[in-house]
Each structure stands twice: as C-alpha cells, then as structure tokens.
C-alpha cells in the first residue's frame, strides 16, 4: 500500500436512521482509506449501505459516529473556507441523468452556474470558454453544437456526460459516482466508463464508484480496488481482478457464482454456490456474529453466529471478514 496520506478516510463509521421507534443500522464500523488517484468500487446488493457510504464521503450526510477524514482532517470540524474547499474537492455524480439535470436550463446555464457561484470565472466570455472546454473533456463534441442544447435533446448517455462535466466545473479531486451507468443503454455504457477512466488519469482524480454490477466494477476498477458490502459492513476488499477472479468471502463467492454471464456455454456450466437461505435479512434484525451466517454454506455453528469476524488478510491479495477463510489462511 502506498504510504501517502489518504485523500479520504472513514474510521469506524456508523450510520443509523430512525424509522418511527425503530433504529435502522445502515452502516456499522466501516473503515476505508482512499489513496490519491485511486479507484475504489463499492459493490453490494440493495440495502448494503453503499450509497450511504458514498453520501457520507460526499458530505451529504454526517456519520452517526466514527471519524470521517478529508486529507487527514476531520470533516465534522471543518469551518468556513476549509469546509468550502472540502465541498468543492469532493463532487458527486448521481444515478439518474433524467432527474439530476434541470430540464429548463441549457447546458451553458447548467455548467456556467457553478463557475460563477464559486467565482471561477469573471465574465460570460470566460464562462463560455470554460464550458466548451468541459464539454470537450467529457467527449460531447463538437462542443459548440452542444452548448445551447437542453437535456431533452440529449440521450441518457449524453446527459450523464453533462452530469460528469458539472461535477468537474469546480476542479474536484475526488468524485463519488453512484451507479452512473446503470440507466445507460449497454451499447454506450462502455464508452462512458472509458471516458471516466480517461478523466481519472488525465486529471489525477480519485474515484469512489458505486455499483451493484460486479462485471462493471471489475472493468472500471481494473487497476483499483473493490469493496464488497453486506448489511452495512465491508466483508471483502482487494484489487479488482483478485476480488472477482478469486473471491474469498462466501458472500462474494455467492455473488460471483450466481451472476449469469454473456457466454451461453460458460454460464450454463458454471459452478454455483448454494446458499442456505435465499432471503436477505432485514436491517432491523441483523443476525448475530457474522451477519451472513444464516445464508452461508460454510457456517460453523457456535462460531459464526456468535463472534463477529474482522477484516483480515486472506491467502490471496484481498482482505475478508470471515472465520472460515481466516482459518484457511492460518493453515496456509
């Protein structure tokens, strides 16, 4: 691991929400350190806490407890200029480009507003030049054809590019992208992902990429890491090719083996990991010990349902929170 100061760090972060008299524990003891220029994909099923984690990083939601550090400084304590600097440095791209753009504003207005708001340009001429530059950056070319357009004149993929350009207006260093390609058609999904990869390299961005699609995570985070979340905790984290080719945690293994693949013979001959239970437990009744134990085929009674496993190194390059893989690692 590089020894630079992490650009962003979550230490023992918890987050819960009240629903009537009940308390829903959405995140429990999440620890993540993001190195500058790193790509981290958060994957997991609905309700695993990946979006909440993204919102905490983007400063849209405070943690209930634990430390949230931006460049080594607690976000909660940032005031005035420092807080503004943090909010500018971390930007978010939302899932739905049909909802995230104002339909009555053309692209010039959408993209120039933050430029003026943050005093990054002095006048209209400067703003126009910068907007054209941003449109080129996200491959909306020729930019002069796009600058006067309204969202309804654009396809889903093009709108998502505008959303990315808007995030880039304030020269961020970290971008949280929440399912940015899930509403974009398959035929153009890859070109959007490739644009994001190019921007990451060209601008030296750090990416937190949230997705439910492991194949997309593997493709986008090829040189980065994947963190798999289950019921509010990170259960496995490691280099993307490793986590997807050689999954260690039984939950990750179940996900990978369950996914159908775009190859008829491969997908029909794939080994499947059978779970003990099909149903995902409610966040209101998170199982004791390892939260995955009621579904886990390797569950050891008296151990997994009692003691919570911590993230620990595995025989591979990733870390997993599992008693069974830990025991295997010790045996070597």
């Amino acid at each position: 691991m590089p020894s630079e100061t992490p650009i962003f760090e979550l230490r023992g972060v918890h987050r819960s929400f009240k629903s009537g008299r009940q308390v829903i524990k959405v995140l429990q003891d999440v620890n993540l350190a993001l190195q500058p220029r790193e790509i981290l994909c958060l994957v997991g099923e609905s309700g695993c806490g990946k979006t909440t984690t993204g919102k905490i990083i983007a400063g849209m939601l405070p943690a209930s407890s634990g430390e949230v550090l931006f460049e080594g400084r607690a976000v909660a304590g940032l005031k005035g200029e420092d807080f503004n600097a943090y909010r500018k440095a971390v930007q978010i791209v939302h899932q739905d480009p049909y909802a995230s753009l104002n339909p009555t504003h053309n692209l010039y207005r959408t993209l120039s507003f933050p430029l003026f708001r943050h005093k990054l340009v002095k006048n209209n001429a400067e703003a126009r030049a910068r907007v054209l530059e941003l449109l080129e950056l996200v491959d909306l070319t020729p930019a002069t054809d796009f600058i006067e357009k309204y969202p309804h004149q654009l396809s889903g993929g093009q709108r998502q590019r505008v959303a990315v350009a808007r995030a880039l207006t304030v020269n961020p260093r970290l971008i949280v992208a929440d399912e940015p390609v899930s509403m974009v058609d398959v035929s153009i999904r890859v070109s959007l992902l490739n644009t994001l990869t190019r921007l990451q390299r060209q601008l030296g961005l750090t990416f937190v990429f949230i997705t439910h699609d492991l194949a997309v995570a593997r493709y986008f985070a090829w040189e980065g890491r994947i963190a798999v979340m289950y019921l509010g905790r990170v259960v496995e984290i490691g280099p993307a090719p490793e986590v997807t080719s050689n999954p260690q945690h039984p939950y990750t293994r179940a996900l990978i083996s369950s996914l159908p693949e775009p190859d008829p013979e491969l997908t029909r001959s794939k080994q499947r990991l059978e779970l003990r239970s099909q149903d995902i437990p409610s966040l209101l009744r998170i199982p004791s010990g390892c939260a995955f134990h009621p579904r886990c085929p390797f569950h050891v009674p008296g151990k997994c349902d009692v003691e919570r496993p911590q993230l620990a190194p595995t025989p591979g390059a990733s870390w997993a929170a599992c008693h069974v893989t830990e025991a295997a690692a010790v045996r070597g």
Partner: protein
Amino acid sequence: MQPVLSVRNLSVEYAAARGKVKAVNNVSFDLFPAETLAIIGESGCGKTTLALALVRLLSRSARIVSGEVTFSGANGVMPFDILTLNQRQLRAYRWRNCAMVFQSALNALNPVLKVKAQVQDTARAHGERDEKKIEARALQLFKAVRLDPDRVYNAYPHELSGGMRQRVLLALGLLLDPQIVILDEPTTALDVLTQRTIIEVLKRIKQEMGFALVFISHDLSMAAELADRIVTMYAGQIVEIGPVNDVFYRPKHPYTTGLMRAVPGLHGDKADLISIPGSPPDLIAPPPGCKFAPRCPYATAICTQQEPPLEARAPNHASACHHWDQIPILRATERNGSDA
C-alpha cells in the same frame, strides 16, 4: 414442427405529436412448443411493444397497422389469428393460452388485496369457477416457484419481498396452464442472488410444465443462460434470429456483435470493450435502407439505399445485413460438443 405462435409482418405504430412512431416494423417469427425465445435489444427497440401486441394489451395510442399473429397451440382447436379476436375471445385467449408477466412486480399486484383474492379474481376473470381447484393449483405453483405456499397465499403484497412478488406473479401467470408465457424483463431491479433464484425457478418449472417461453431482456447474460433461440431487435425490426450458441459465437449482424463486444464479463484479462458509436434512429422518420447503417462499421453505399431482408445465413439462423459474410466469428468451436 408446428409453431405454437406464428407472427407475420406485424407492424405497430404509436401516435405522437410529431407523427407516427414506427415502434414495430414488419416483424415475422415463429415460436415453437416448449422453446425459450429471448428477445434482446436496447430501450426503444420495440421489444416490449412487440410482446404487448402478442396479447393485444397495447395502449390506446398504439395501432396495429398490419400483420397476423396465429396461435395454434391448443389441442383440438383450429388455429386462429389473435388480431381478429373480439374482447370476449381475447379474454379466453389471455391467461389460458398465453400469459404475460410484467416487468414491475411492485405495481402488478393490488396492494390492498391478499394474494389469495388476486389468485381467485384472476381465475374467475378467465372463466374458472372452482375455487377449491384453483387454490390447490395455486399452492402447488407457489411450491414450484420456491415460496412457502400457505404463508404467501394468505399474505398481502407488502409482506413479500421483491423477489417473492416476482415469483407470485410468475405462479399467477401459470395458473391456467398456458401454452405460452411472456416475461418482460423478469429480473431487472432484482438483486443478484434473488435473480439467481428466479432463473433457477424458471428453468425448473419450464421443464416440468413444458410451456413456450418468450422473454424480453436487455441483459445478454440472462439470454445466454436461459434461451434456446435469440431474437435481436433494432429500431423496431428483427435484425437477427437464431440458436443461442450461433448468435453468441457466430453472429451474423453487426448490431448483435456490437452488443456482445460492449458487455464486460467476470473472467480473464481486462476485456477490450467497444461501444457502438452513435444512437438509434428516430422512429418517426427512420432513415432509408438499413436502420443500423449510420452506426455500422461495415456500412457501404448499398446499406443506405436498400433495406437488407431478414434471410437465412446458416441453418436456422437469419439476419438482415448486406455484409453478413464479413462479420467475424467470435468463437469458432464450442467448449463441450455441439448444440443439442
């Protein structure tokens, strides 16, 4: 073999402010007994409109312009054209002969009625009055789709998870033992592990009950796993149809190839993925010639002038492309033997 459903030259238009949207354009195909046919394509390609036309559930702004949809699946009944049925005949055809299971499991069930009531209502609406018989059948089907029969039968929809609701709908679709089941995006919006349960359930009940299955999906992986044959749709037309392995490994249309090359997998080195440039044509004023030509790497002058016909390019494998013989084979031989 005699097809259970035969679609010929079907065209459907929607009335829009700017003109007529040619959502389905001159589509012909056969569905054979007990086969699984996957219709793949991107949003707006006409796949859902086509499915809705097969059960005549199109919205009021839609009009079937031409075509025939001949059903010949029922024993001892003369084949008939679905497009000529009156409302009473349609009600008999829907559900008994052909059931459609919709995309959104959340919206398709009535939230204020117990599952039980919805099962009985459905059966009654389609002419089945024996409540005991229906209950027994429903419980048997719930078991087949891996639900706890008694609990689910007496539950309200909100007491069930998304995956359970999807399975209730599936069981409901099979209630009157139809010869054809149409599934519209059966697993979108479901989590990976839930999706796997649905896939396994589908495979099993399909084998047990022997209906013909049409499923519509934008997900190539689902099609690879479940389908016997694949139909690729683009801009309201069928551009390719053939056995699953042939279409995946030896596609004969550049749009199919484009889709295959755009989807990341979970194996091997970092894939060299390429998007299809451009976007689908305006269906109000579609371009002349091949609709895919503006995005196609093989396009030549003929493509923009002459519409390529859907013709056989290999046994049971047809495509609508002038340059089908230039399209590279993606994988020459199968890993374990040939197609069954």
